[in-house]
């Protein structure tokens, strides 16, 4: 499919990228392109200018601090994260990235792109919510840090506003995490997914059931099903699952994710 006419820029710094975004109203950041380019083919998005972030070295790389905090550049690809020795400090990250789509998509698709797209069926929004990630967002007014719960705003919408860029993802130390999903084929699109983390208490984030990840704080494993049922959810229905069935699946994957997180704890 031929894309609509579009202009292209490849800045080499965050400041330069922000300047191009500010200069052009219809400009949009291009990360790995594994969502955006397809959306452009379908004309569901028609940016006038693509600001390619692939030349910005400062947006890459994973660092592990002495206290176990991980700092992940948003332009890190899923494949880079899977292969990163530093990222093994929080093993669930590589484990979940290895379940995203296929080799080709993981080679180009980025961590930042996955969360900025904020498709409710994506893997990383509930995962980063459950494990307490924080996102740094840069704009003309400087940089601010937003917790995951405030980062995901709506379907395809995040706290990254027009003219802004996600510049860093910070993840605290921790090991007791879990993730479970029901997918269309192995590693396909999620029909339901859930991430869990134990950091003192159990924390669960459900994907696929609402516009943004739904956070639950059940007392323990036994309370998980009731917590899902009493969350007042009205999941979307589609060709793959009715609303009721998706709610049932949410309960199942929440329990599985919690079981994994609680294992050996």
């Amino acid at each position, binding site marked *: 499919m*031929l894309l609509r006419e579009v*202009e292209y*820029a490849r800045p080499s710094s965050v400041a330069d990228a922000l300047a*191009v975004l500010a*200069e052009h109203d219809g400009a949009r950041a291009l990360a790995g392109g594994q969502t955006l380019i*397809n959306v452009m083919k379908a004309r569901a998005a028609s940016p006038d200018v693509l600001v390619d972030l692939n030349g910005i070295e400062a947006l890459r790389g994973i660092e592990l601090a002495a206290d176990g905090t991980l700092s992940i550049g948003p332009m890190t690809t899923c494949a880079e994260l899977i292969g990163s020795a530093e990222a093994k400090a929080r093993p669930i990250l590589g484990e979940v990235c290895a379940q995203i789509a*296929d080799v080709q998509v993981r080679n*180009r698709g980025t961590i930042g792109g996955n969360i900025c797209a904020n498709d409710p069926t994506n893997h990383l929004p509930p995962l980063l919510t459950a494990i307490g990630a924080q996102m740094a967002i840069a704009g003309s007014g400087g940089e601010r840090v937003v917790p995951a719960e405030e980062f995901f705003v709506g379907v395809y919408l995040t706290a990254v506003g027009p003219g802004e860029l996600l510049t860093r993802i910070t993840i605290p130390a921790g090991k007791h995490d879990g993730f479970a999903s029901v997918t269309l084929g192995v590693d396909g699109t999620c029909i339901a997914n859930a991430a869990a983390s134990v950091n003192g208490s159990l924390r669960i984030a459900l994907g696929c059931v609402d516009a943004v990840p739904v956070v639950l704080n059940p007392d323990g494993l036994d309370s998980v099903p009731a917590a899902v049922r009493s969350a007042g959810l009205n999941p979307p229905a589609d060709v793959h699952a009715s609303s009721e069935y998706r709610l049932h699946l949410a309960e199942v994957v929440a329990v599985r994710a919690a079981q994994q997180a609680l294992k050996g704890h």
Partner: protein
Amino acid sequence: MAAVSASKTVTVTVNDTVYEREVEARKLLIHFIRDDLDLTGSHIGCDTGNCGACSVIVDGALVKSCMMLAVQADGATIETVEGLAEGGALTELQQAFSAHHALQCGYCTPGMLMSATALLRTTPSPTDEQIKKALQGNICRCTGYWNIFEAVKAAAGGGA
């Protein structure tokens, strides 16, 4: 500020040949390879990033060339299915595809070959599971997966 333009001069090395072309920013890499460079071995199957028929290796990484812009490949080294058989001699993998009848209509074959080539470079002796995972991004509408799997396994074993 970085230059903003609707087209760009792109220099790429494809199968050891250097090409320089003026390319529109909206052109997908697969269209550039097929229409501008006349290398029609890489196929367009679904054009939605699902089928993998357009898989090529860019700077060592297997990618679907329908989800990358040609201008993004400026300076890159690209390998397509045409580059596999150096001097016309089929690779062990290609011979194995022939011996195991690993194609029916053949439309997905270029992508399958590139995915399996990428796998065998990093993992010369893959497990069955690794072979299946490596081919996950490639769809065969004839559903001839079993012979494709057998061919990759045979090539990994050191002969067709």
